[in-house]
């Protein structure tokens, strides 16, 4: 299964590309297509507007824009795909962040006629900030530049230069025409000079299992299972989803915050015990010793522990109308742990277009990115986001309204 996010404005042909992928993989159903054809005709469009397939809300169809992330599904014989279709406008940066948070890969579209624009750079930057492991720059509308190798290579060169500043783990650049299907499913005869894979071929073959962290054992305890039944009178298991690392019965483990050590007695599932657990398996761990462990605790290895930190230095994306200012108190949710947090300082606001760091900023507004320092009421068991997307990410919640107001990525942390 590959989760990918798509970014680019309507004009770059994003909806056409998604429509093309769905259509060519036979994932558009006839009744859906008929509904779109009818809606297009009713609006007076002289073409079938594939954007109507993904713009699911009344307000989106009325305004002709994408407001929110939509999830689409398609499959080929090789792989199942989940597309997080994110809106491209700057005012929807938060939705792009949302879509990228779980993505294995991101496709950023550019119009070959226009080349790189501010938006392409912003989208690429957000994907690297969210540590999406694979980035594809799809240079679209190649038909409108006469399939020109020179145009493509110029964009390629410019983007590669920009990408070196961003720490892009894996970059692929593909010239396409979403409208005509060139280099989408198969290699295009119109661009014989391009020797790379078609877009779908790349999506089907990109190697994602090595993107996971299999080294640092991190098992946030989500729920304690105690049946207290006649069949299982003394059963006590720690249920959770493996965040990273590989756990095996017999392994010595350390539990935070207590610091006690024990040994894994068994790793249970409803099908019986398993020999190993790795991300993202949802399992139940039994330990050899009776310890006081509850939700929010972290099981790790004695010689490989996360930081235990109350001062958190993080990059955040602010997602709410009411701006973030220093001194604000918020609820912070990190793995299975929820604590209160105080905004100690706002280091800088980041201009996502120029990457300029604006120090001395007083506030972060809706869709702003910035680096802040938080102090929490209880320690977090965390890793740097760049090393571990699961134990390095958190959300901030408004204490009065309960709205989710920010996504955070931990840069470093210190014990108090």
């Amino acid at each position, binding site marked *: 299964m590959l989760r990918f996010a798509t970014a680019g404005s309507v004009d770059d042909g994003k909806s056409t590309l998604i429509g093309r992928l769905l259509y060519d993989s036979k994932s558009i159903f006839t009744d859906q297509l008929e509904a779109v054809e009818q809606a297009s005709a009713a609006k007076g469009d002289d073409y079938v507007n594939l954007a109507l397939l993904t713009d699911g809300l009344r307000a989106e169809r009325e305004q002709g824009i994408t407001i929110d992330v939509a999830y689409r599904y398609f499959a080929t014989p090789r792989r199942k795909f989940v597309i997080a279709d994110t809106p491209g406008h700057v005012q929807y940066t938060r939705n792009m*962040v949302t879509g990228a948070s779980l993505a294995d890969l991101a496709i950023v579209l550019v119009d070959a006629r226009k080349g790189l624009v501010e938006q392409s750079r912003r989208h690429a930057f957000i994907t690297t900030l969210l540590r999406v492991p694979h980035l594809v720059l799809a240079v679209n509308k190649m038909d409108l530049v006469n399939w020109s190798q020179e145009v493509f290579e110029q964009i390629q060169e410019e983007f590669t230069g920009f990408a070196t500043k961003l720490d892009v783990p894996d970059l692929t650049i593909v010239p396409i025409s979403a409208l005509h299907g060139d280099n989408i499913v198969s290699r295009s005869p119109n661009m014989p000079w391009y020797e790379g894979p078609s877009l779908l071929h790349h999506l089907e073959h990109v190697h994602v299992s090595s993107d996971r962290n299999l080294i640092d054992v991190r098992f946030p305890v989500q729920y304690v299972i105690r049946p207290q039944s006649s069949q299982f009178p003394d059963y006590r298991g720690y249920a959770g989803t493996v965040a990273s690392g590989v756990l095996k019965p017999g392994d010595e483990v350390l539990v935070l915050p207590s610091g006690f050590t024990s040994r894994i007695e068994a790793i249970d599932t409803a099908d019986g015990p398993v020999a190993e657990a790795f991300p993202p398996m949802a399992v139940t761990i039994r330990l050899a010793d009776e310890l006081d462990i509850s939700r929010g605790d972290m099981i790790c290895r004695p010689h490989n522990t996360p930081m235990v930190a109350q001062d958190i230095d993080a990059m955040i994306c602010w997602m709410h109308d009411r701006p973030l200012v220093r001194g604000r108190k918020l609820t912070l949710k990190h793995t299975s742990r929820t604590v209160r947090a105080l905004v100690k300082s706002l280091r800088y606001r980041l201009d996502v277009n120029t990457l300029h760091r604006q120090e001395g900023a007083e506030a972060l507004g809706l869709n702003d990115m910035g680096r802040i320092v938080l102090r929490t009421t209880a320690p977090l068991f965390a890793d740097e986001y760049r090393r571990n997307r699961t134990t390095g990410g958190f959300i901030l919640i408004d204490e009065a309204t309960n709205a989710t107001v920010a*996504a955070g990525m931990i840069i470093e942390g210190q014990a108090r």
Partner: protein
Amino acid sequence: MIDKTVTGEYRLSQLQALEAESIHVFREVVAELERPVLLFSGGKDSIVMLHLARRAFWPAHIPFPVLHVDTGHNFEEVLAFRDRLVEELGVRLLVADVVEGIRRGLAVEPPDGTRNRIQTPVLLDALEKHGFTAAFGGARRDEDKARAKERVFSFRDDFGQWDPKNQRPELWSLYNGRIHPGESIRVFPLSNWTELDVWQYIAQQSIALPSIYFAHDRQVFERAGMLFGVHEYCRPKAGEEVLTARVRYRTVGDASLTAAVRSTADTLDKVIEEVAATRITERGATRGDDKFSEAAMEDRKREGYF
């Protein structure tokens, strides 16, 4: 079981990954929200949800009851199946009765006799009466374009309403289940499953289903291009000819507006083959109510529908 050849590469199959994600969601809700309930229709998606819930809390029992909103327009096979399943799993079954809701004035019987839309006030009344703070639903994002936009944890205000333009951002696997008294969360553990995933999982796990999901001979009549089974609550009007056809149901809902599809698929393997090859969506093929308008689902969801 975890496939050994798969574990060698530390990779989960598609169904294993989907299952793990759903189990995570179930556990998160039970850990964070005080009074969850599972909305059970007797359809395949709610049966798969119950199966996943059992696996999420094994060897303990499922730690929440199930709620069936009963329109009174039922397929008998489905009701019998429901009663067997809850007994086998040892879960408590609550029934919110739409007919009684009409008597109490919660809803008015629509002139056409279909009760899909009036399930909403009865559902909201039952959730409030029992003080449920979270309700699991079997909706999938591939079903409908409004659902494609919905969160896994979908916040509802104290009127049970969904505000699609003001949804909580949902990042990583960090779900925000915080609510004020009176508010609630609808939770969709099957959000990322497709119809085909559900069928493949049913086959892989040997999950039993009501017999109407498999091809059988039934008295049907055609209406609005769909085949409706002749039923106490769904009778042909003048000019609608009754014929016997080999059909199965792709979805199970209110018997008065759920249509059957022509099919010879009488085994799981044949159903999977059929679903993989179909060119029409599940709801498009079988639900009279979603043909009303382009935004029918969005409108119902705003009111507090499943």
